[in-house]
């Protein structure tokens, strides 16, 4: 924004759920920001809290059982402390969401046109005909052929990719400033995935939206991201400019994520071990139990403070902190710049994610 303030600024966001087994901490003190017109990707394994983090921004997770704390500053307003009625005016209007599974994300009982105009008429005082005209325009814009005749069709009459296009049309009704896209291409096949990403890219230029994009697909990240936030077990491990992080991944977790990708010179292996139990996270760095460089200092206290190692690149790792020794982490064997990543062609193991 012109005044140098980010469009969205998330500070110390913590989301917990009270369950029968005690309190589950899904997101634990996360910081990140999104500027107008930029794409920020949140990456990490399934279960690392990416989705909960994005759904906490406009409080669309159910509270209770959820409990959201911290600050979510959108254009200077703290979304977590404004009344529900004000928040509803922002949802779907200024901040729009699209979801992972377009099939489930639409109500099967209503026509797609009804569902788009519903979003429109909640926020704008328009007649049914005006709403219809605008909805058809949007359907046309997102690439639905014969939009005016398909207005009255039901979701099940569209393919998966078309459904996601409709969801995007629904998100665009209020000319949003921020689009939160939660794995919008995961349920789609690869060619459709590329088309949807291209569409989002075009729309971003056209609408000047900031996009917060959740994915576990680093290939998608490489294609669309300006900045990335690497999350693990509810904590941010590393964040910064996408090129900086891909060139020089500093956190062992980021390094191992990239290592999983043969196309980035990795070996295509998975990361050994599993995510810690969110009811009872380990002391110290969350990643320490799976980290090959973990020392005693990594297993005590809290998650290390984030350290800015390069301008705009922050990492949460003991070895980069005060008294740490970054050379412990064998950076040269990772990174796209390295020469040891010769893939052996055997890449049946994908990313560590599902």
């Amino acid at each position, binding site marked *: 924004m012109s005044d140098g303030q980010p469009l969205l600024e998330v500070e110390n966001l913590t989301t917990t759920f009270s369950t029968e087994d005690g309190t589950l901490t899904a997101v634990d003190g996360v910081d990140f920001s999104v500027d107008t017109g930029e794409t920020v990707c949140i990456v990490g394994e399934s279960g690392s809290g990416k989705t909960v983090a994005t759904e906490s921004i406009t409080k669309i997770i159910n509270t209770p059982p959820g409990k959201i704390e911290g600050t979510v500053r959108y254009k200077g307003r703290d979304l977590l402390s404004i009344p529900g009625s004000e928040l*509803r005016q922002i949802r779907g209007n200024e901040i729009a969401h699209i979801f992972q599974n377009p099939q489930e994300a639409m109500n099967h*009982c209503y026509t797609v046109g009804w569902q788009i105009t*519903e979003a429109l008429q909640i926020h704008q005082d328009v007649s049914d005909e005006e709403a219809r005209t605008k909805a058809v325009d949007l359907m046309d814009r997102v690439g639905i052929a014969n939009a005016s005749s398909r207005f009255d069709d039901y979701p099940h009459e569209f393919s998966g990719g078309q459904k996601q296009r409709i969801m995007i049309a629904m998100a665009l009704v209020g000319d949003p400033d921020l689009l939160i896209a939660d794995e919008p291409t995961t349920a789609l096949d690869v060619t459709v995935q590329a088309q949807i990403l291209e569409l989002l890219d075009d729309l971003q230029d056209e609408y000047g939206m900031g996009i917060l994009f959740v994915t576990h697909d680093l290939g998608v990240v490489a294609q669309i991201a300006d900045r990335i936030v690497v999350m693990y077990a509810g904590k941010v491990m590393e964040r910064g400019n996408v090129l900086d992080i891909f060139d020089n991944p500093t956190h062992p977790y980021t390094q191992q994520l990239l290592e999983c990708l043969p196309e980035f010179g990795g070996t295509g292996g998975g990361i050994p071990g599993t995510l810690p139990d969110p009811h009872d996270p380990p002391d110290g760095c969350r990643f320490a139990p799976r980290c090959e460089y973990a020392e005693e200092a990594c297993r005590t206290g809290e998650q290390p403070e984030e350290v800015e190692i390069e301008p705009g690149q922050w990492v949460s790792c003991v070895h980069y902190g005060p008294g740490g020794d970054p050379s412990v982490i064998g950076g040269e064997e990772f990174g796209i710049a390295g020469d040891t990543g010769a893939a052996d062609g055997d890449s049946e193991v994908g990313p560590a994610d599902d």
Partner: protein
Amino acid sequence: MGFGRYVTARVLWAGVVSLIITTITFLLLSAAPNPDVQRAATQAALQGGDPAEAVERARELRGLDEPLYVRYFDFVQGVYTLDWGWSSSRSQPVIEAVGNALYYTAQYSIPWTILTVILGPLVGVYSAANMYSWRDHAATGFAFFGYAIPNFFFGIILLLIFGVWLEVIPIVYNTDVAVFSVENAIQLAIPVFVLVTGSIGAVMRVSRNESAEFQNADFMKTAKAKGVSPLRAYAYHVMRPTLVPLSTTLVGQLLALFLGSSLLVEVVFGIPGLGRLTFEALLSQDTNLVLGTTLFFTFVAVVGNLIEDLVFTVLDPRISYDDR
């Protein structure tokens, strides 16, 4: 292919079903001995006449000597032209007896059905929205109570409390009051209440469980993300899909109660409706009247299922009627 054609086909099928029912009824009836004929034979024997001749005459009188197919066509024609024969126990045409009884049955059935159809889903969805709260537990408790307690017994208890002890309602149903009068509303309040508690339980439970599924569906998250208010989200996004499975339960429930409970409730409260008419026809072995009330209930069931099928396709657009 279109909805219009589906409706037409479905209505025609309902007609065929009713014809099949009529045919089966006729076959059963013609295979069974006719009590009138037997009575004539007994009477002739008692009076020293010839039983065989009396049987012959009685059969001739009732057209039973005609060939089977002639009698079948007569019977079918009679059923569809509402000429349902003569009720010997009531000395009036069967259709008239059914019509009179229906007049009283409708007076409590219509408010009962409307209340069940409106309150059941509302309370069920409300219960799901407040799941495991004291409101939910109260609604669930009420549902199980109404479901578990026999209608006639509950009716007697309420009659005892409000009619005998508190004396706020008449103990015997008064047919002389006008349909739309305070007196009629008062005397029908308890029977309607009893029937509603009996039928609303299942409706509430089904809508609670179905809507519990839909209120956590992804499309509810979409609705929330669009800025839809919670009330609107429940009214549109939860209620609508809930009605689809509910419509099946609802029709079955209401029909079952209509046939079963209305009889007992009418007997308890002394309402001269269809249930009591059937009951008395059975006791007095009035074949034509039993046949008439049975056919009436059967046709109600056929029409009920027809409506259910049509409502089903309107509510859930995914149900295809292309290949049916």
